[in-house]
């Protein structure tokens, strides 16, 4: 059996409003074009299948209506997910999915939902919705850009973040830091296909996954990825030079 990288895509049907499944496609292509095959397992609820083999876990965002429906399904697999996280498998969690994998979500009506407890963060829905370009300076990756669209605050405590907010709001009322990034766990409200503009982030997740398995690329720098990465650099530059919001 040839070695392959296994991506677990959680709740693609409920959570994936903003082209977020693009992230899974991008991870897959970036690995396969370098000679490392990828298998994607999609989990939409029910008995967890293939969780133990997952090398990388992705969960996207969605409207509150979908988040509420996904909530019990997430709790069903919470123990399995915490195990994967503790075992060093990389996670990329976005928006509503990031919130569901946290400790708690306080809804606007006052109800508090329990999260899966993968990320040590707490979410509070409410406040003025922030919508617009999002520029973050990451100590590890440099400029990370995307789009922010959220009506909630996330408290990440003293933990590490994706980076410092250059344009946009970020985790809390005070524009300062965005998301959560420690070891193998990355969560953010930079929604949509965040990996499209930021291939460095994709490669970092893939490297964490590969290293744990001891898997190597046969062609680490194929020409077509170089071309795409040049375009992504231009895209980041265009957004960072003139970010806009509503």
């Amino acid at each position, binding site marked *: 059996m040839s070695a392959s990288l296994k991506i677990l895509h959680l709740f693609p*049907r*409920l959570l*994936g*409003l*903003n*082209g*977020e*499944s*693009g992230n899974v*496609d*991008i991870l897959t*292509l970036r690995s396969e074009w370098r000679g490392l095959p990828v298998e994607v397992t999609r989990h939409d609820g029910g008995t967890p299948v293939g969780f133990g083999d997952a090398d990388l876990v992705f969960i996207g965002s*969605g*409207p*509150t*209506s*979908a988040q509420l*429906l996904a909530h019990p399904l997430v709790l069903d697999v919470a123990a399995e997910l915490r195990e994967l996280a503790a075992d060093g498998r990389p996670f990329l969690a976005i928006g509503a999915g990031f919130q569901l994998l946290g400790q708690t979500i306080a809804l606007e009506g006052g109800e508090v939902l329990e999260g899966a407890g993968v990320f040590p963060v707490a979410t509070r829905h409410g406040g003025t*919705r922030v*919508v*617009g*370009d999002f520029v973050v300076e990451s100590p590890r990756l440099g400029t990370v850009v995307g*789009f922010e*669209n959220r*009506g909630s605050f996330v408290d990440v405590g003293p933990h590490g973040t994706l980076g410092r907010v250059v344009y946009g709001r970020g985790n809390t009322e005070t524009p300062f830091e965005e998301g959560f990034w420690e070891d193998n766990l990355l969560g953010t409200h930079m*929604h*949509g*296909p965040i990996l*499209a*503009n930021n291939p460095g982030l994709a490669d970092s997740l893939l490297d964490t996954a590969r290293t744990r398995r001891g898997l190597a690329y046969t062609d680490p720098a194929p020409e*077509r990825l170089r*071309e*795409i990465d040049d*375009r*992504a650099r*231009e*895209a980041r530059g*265009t957004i960072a030079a*003139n970010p*806009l919001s*509503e």
Partner: protein
Amino acid sequence: MALRTTAAVLVGRAVRVAARLRGGGSAIPGNIALRIDPGFLERTIARIPHGVVAVSGSNGKSTTTNMLAAIIRAHGLSVFTNPSGGNLPQGIASALLSEVSTGGRLNKDIAILEIDEGYGTRLAELLKPRTVLLLNIQIDQLNRYHEPDRVATMLGRVAATSTDGLILNREDNFLVDMDARIPGRTGRRVSFFGGVPSLVDDASHGVASADRFDEGSAVPGSRAAAVEVVALDGARATLAIDPWTDGETGDGVASARTQIEVRLPARGMHYALDAAGAAATARSVLGERFRPELVTRALDTLETVYGRGEMLEVAGEQIEIIMMKNPASLQLNLDSLEGAPEQVFLAVDEGTPDPSWIYDIDFSALDHVDGITGSKAWQFAVRFGYLGIPVGEVDLDVRRALKAFLARPKPATGHKVMILNYEQMMLIRKILGFKELEGGGAA
């Protein structure tokens, strides 16, 4: 009050003339008129004898409003309508300015108005529509509306204001049971339009209805349709229309239906559904005066709305404009292309603040893109890179990119295709010397 209205009309008109000379800014005159006389819009509209028909939804508002106005006119009524895109209060006020007397009177029988879903609630209060037509709820402008559920709630409020007629798309996940989710009203007739299942399923991405996660009381397609698309052949569709009955229950008798053939603005099931929606609304508004054959006549001679299946003639060459308003409209328009176009140009700017959704679009209708411009060009280039769709040139300078595209050889088959967002469509029309305002320069 009367003096104030006269001032509003005169100043607004003067601004309108100035704006037209510049070739843009269609909402500004209305904005100014409303500032001088805030009650101008509401008062003028309230005096229209047959009242207001409001048309809303994520996609097809302009096309359908245009169709409906033509059908109603074919029945002998005079119609006030707003030009495409002018669907906010100031846009409607701008349109009024060219039609009212200086005393603020409008000599029309009925108003057929496209209204923006985000302003729907406010506009419905202002315009008090007797009849409401809702077309669809698709993933659209999430930067503005955040989630489709919110759009459904907003359109529900608009639907609830209708007193005489409510016309809904039964193929839409959110609209199929909209009548059951709003307070009922005595005297309001609810009717549906749709397509036969084979046509709805055949459209490769269906009707692109947004996913709905709560429990609906009816599944899409399950309601009896007063007007149904029963056949589709290129840009021609056959509609089956229920006869009008006084007791209108919505349960049509199939055997007594009239079949008519209609011309669409371009290929595509979404246009056929727009035509069905327009016919169903005319039927609801006119009742026993409605004549199905006049639908055929009206749609046969209809001019297309900008960028909705429109062909532009540039230097003796036909260029098809596909407006990329949102994911659903782009997907449906890509699906209706006949083969991959030989020459394709794409222009997208900040008017589409967050193009994340291009990762949900099936671009397999394209085998390459010759040129991309606009501030979002590089994001599209990345997407095409991952899809393995070759990209000719990315140039953020719109004029230069457009010039290069126009200089490309005429395709051996078909015509050049430009895929544009609304803002780029307006800009490029202007660059190419099409100076009229949106609305086809009516008046």
